[in-house]
């Protein structure tokens, strides 16, 4: 089990260069790759979300914009050029800053948020060994880094000098901090079962035994607690009260435009992908093929597991969860802020604590029986 940084260092080490330059190289290359992945993700996700929304709302969605004038027949291309049109529009838009805004804070707020998302990707695998750095505290690192964004949200809301932004930021801070707890508790449960915080160990455990979601009734419940909590943590409907457009205009993003707003957008979709990837490799077997769930399939089907096809399986699982989030968004109304807090503190946290207690007993009994 290696990571990208390890393999890069190994590959280039035969060239006799300074170790510092080598390290710099090993940092810059994965960083660039991850940034490109994030940018591609936001472009494709936005298109995907627009099409999903259109499908649910009995419309067609983007159909008109082709690439370089080639529509290629509307049915075939389906307005795929909208992706580039949106990107160009967002990047060339005027960057408006309110006169009384705190300019420095307003400038750095989007970058703090995007840095949080980008840093989380370091601990996220895309396949067996396709991970920037596979450290031994992987899960803890992911939980820690996903909370960085809230600082940016508060800064953005405060610096805009707008009451709606302030409302949005306060709601968002309360929400993200509260929902960190059930997320942490459910991931802790997985750590208890497999005895490691390292990402590769968790998937290896699932490869040896079974997917976590099917491991015991408690891990099954934990998956749903985790998934609903991360929907809240990424501020998606039905928990999108920080940017509730019918109440707070656009919440903490109200005063942002152009490039800075597109960075918010990028981090939102990146966060969706991150939490879906985490759910996939923690609960749904990561890069293991679905045929490993039960042993009814013959061994020859194990050929469907591997490095390259693992990328496919992991992305399929993650993108399905992303789709479920979009499904939520276009189906559900929005909760009120106190109901949101109620759901977290009085439902999810007691349930995940009880879950944690019972799963330890389950493991003790299972360990004694085997």
């Amino acid at each position: 089990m290696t990571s990208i940084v390890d393999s890069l260092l190994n590959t280039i080490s035969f060239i006799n260069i300074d170790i510092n330059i080598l390290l710099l190289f090993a940092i810059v290359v994965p960083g660039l790759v991850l940034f490109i992945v994030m940018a591609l993700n936001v472009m494709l996700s936005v298109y995907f979300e627009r099409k999903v929304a259109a499908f649910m709302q009995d419309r067609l969605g983007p159909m008109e914009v082709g690439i370089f004038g080639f529509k290629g027949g509307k049915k075939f291309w389906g307005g795929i050029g909208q992706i580039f049109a949106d990107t160009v529009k967002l990047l060339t838009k005027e960057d408006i800053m309110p006169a009384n805004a705190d300019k420095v804070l307003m400038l750095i707020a989007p970058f703090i948020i995007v840095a949080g998302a980008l840093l989380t990707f370091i601990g996220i695998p895309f396949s067996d060994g396709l991970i920037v750095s596979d450290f031994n505290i992987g899960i803890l690192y992911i939980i820690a880094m996903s909370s960085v964004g809230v600082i940016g949200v508060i800064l953005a809301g405060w610096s805009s000098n707008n009451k709606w932004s302030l409302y949005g930021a306060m709601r968002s801070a309360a929400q993200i901090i509260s929902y960190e707890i059930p997320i942490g508790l459910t991931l802790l449960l997985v750590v208890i079962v497999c005895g490691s915080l390292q990402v590769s160990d968790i998937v290896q455990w699932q490869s040896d035994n079974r997917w976590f979601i099917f491991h015991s009734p408690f891990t099954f419940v934990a998956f749903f607690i985790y998934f609903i909590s991360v929907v809240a943590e990424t501020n998606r409907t039905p928990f999108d009260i920080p940017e509730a457009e019918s109440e707070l205009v656009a919440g903490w993003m109200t005063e942002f435009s152009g490039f800075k707003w597109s960075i918010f957008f990028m981090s939102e979709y990146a966060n969706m992908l991150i939490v879906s990837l985490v759910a996939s490799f923690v609960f749904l077997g990561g890069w293991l093929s679905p045929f490993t769930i039960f042993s009814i399939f013959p061994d020859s089907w194990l050929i469907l597991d591997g490095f390259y096809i693992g990328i496919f399986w992991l992305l399929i699982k993650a993108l399905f969860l992303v789709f479920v989030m979009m499904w939520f968004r276009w189906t559900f109304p929005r909760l009120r802020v106190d109901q949101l807090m109620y759901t977290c503190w009085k439902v999810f946290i007691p349930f995940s604590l009880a879950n944690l207690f019972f799963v330890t007993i389950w493991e003790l009994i299972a360990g004694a029986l085997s």
Partner: protein
Amino acid sequence: MFKIVDKSIISADEMVLNMGPQHPSTHGVLRLKIITDGEIVSSVEPIIGYLHRCFEKHCESLSYEQIVPFTDRCDYLASMHMSHSYSMAVEKLLDLELPERVEYIRVIVAELQRIASHLIAVGVFGLDVGAITPFTWTLRDRERILDLFEMLCGARLLYNYVWPGGVSHDLPPNFIQKTHEFLDYFLPQIDEYNQVLTTNRIFIERSADVGVLPLDVGINYGVTGPSLRGSGSTFDLRKDEPYSVYDKFDFDVPVGQGLMGTVGDCWDRYYVKVLEMKESAKILRQALDGIPKGDVHEVLPKKIRPPKGEVYSRYESARGDVGFYIRSAGKNMPDRLKMRSPAYCNLSVLNEISAGWMMSDVIAALGSLDIVLGEIDR
């Protein structure tokens, strides 16, 4: 039930928040001056007048026929109702008896318009509590009604169809059949809205027990229409003071029963509108089947010159009790025209039902009152 924090234990400085005139969910150019303590709202003051167009003063310098398009623009979501109610007032002034067919056509378009208006109200209330998809579904179905109206008079929003003394055009061929087809299509759609919105757990959490309007408060403020019926009153002018040919039809008046919470909460006001669409469909079926043959134009002089006198007529529009007071001095223009706007009275109750609740509840309460600013400001 949701309990508000005791102010004597926790208190902080209050903040004045201006919601609107440009805001996604103030239903037009309404400004709400909200005094809040954090998320909890202590008072809401609606400030109106951003869409004031001097409708009543204008009418004093226009002939009676020329006023009809102006009434259309008052409640632009229920134009047929406004021109119908105005025409009724003028006809009362002239003491005119109309052919049976005209009355039937007017009832048909009025009930279609009521469905169209309630579709907007239902969808927009969903939008206010955060559900986007039902809104597009209701708009999709409203399009079909607009297509019918386009067939009828060429216009899709402001029809100028109901005139004093008649209607502008007779029903086109196929109209009755197409309306039947629409109803066949539409009634199953209501169940679909109920599935995705009305019985949705989150929707119920957001609207039940929220913005409760007690019946006595509603009557004191002059609230009418679905908003009052949501509080349990059966007041409906179509039943209580039947005008046109409404006394010939068999229909029920749905009232709020507090199925999901207290009687008179946002959910009741919303659900009354859903049920009223079904009742309108019932009336439509009867009217389409029973429509008599005849002429649709009552012979009127080119210039209407009503005798001296004054008249007040009431009409049950999609939003409530529309009243037109007209005083005639014997000229071809009204001496004074006053419109009683139902949405204006309905909006006045907003502070009563949303003070003490949270920010999001103000939006829900406002959405459930179903106001149209064009009518409030006139």
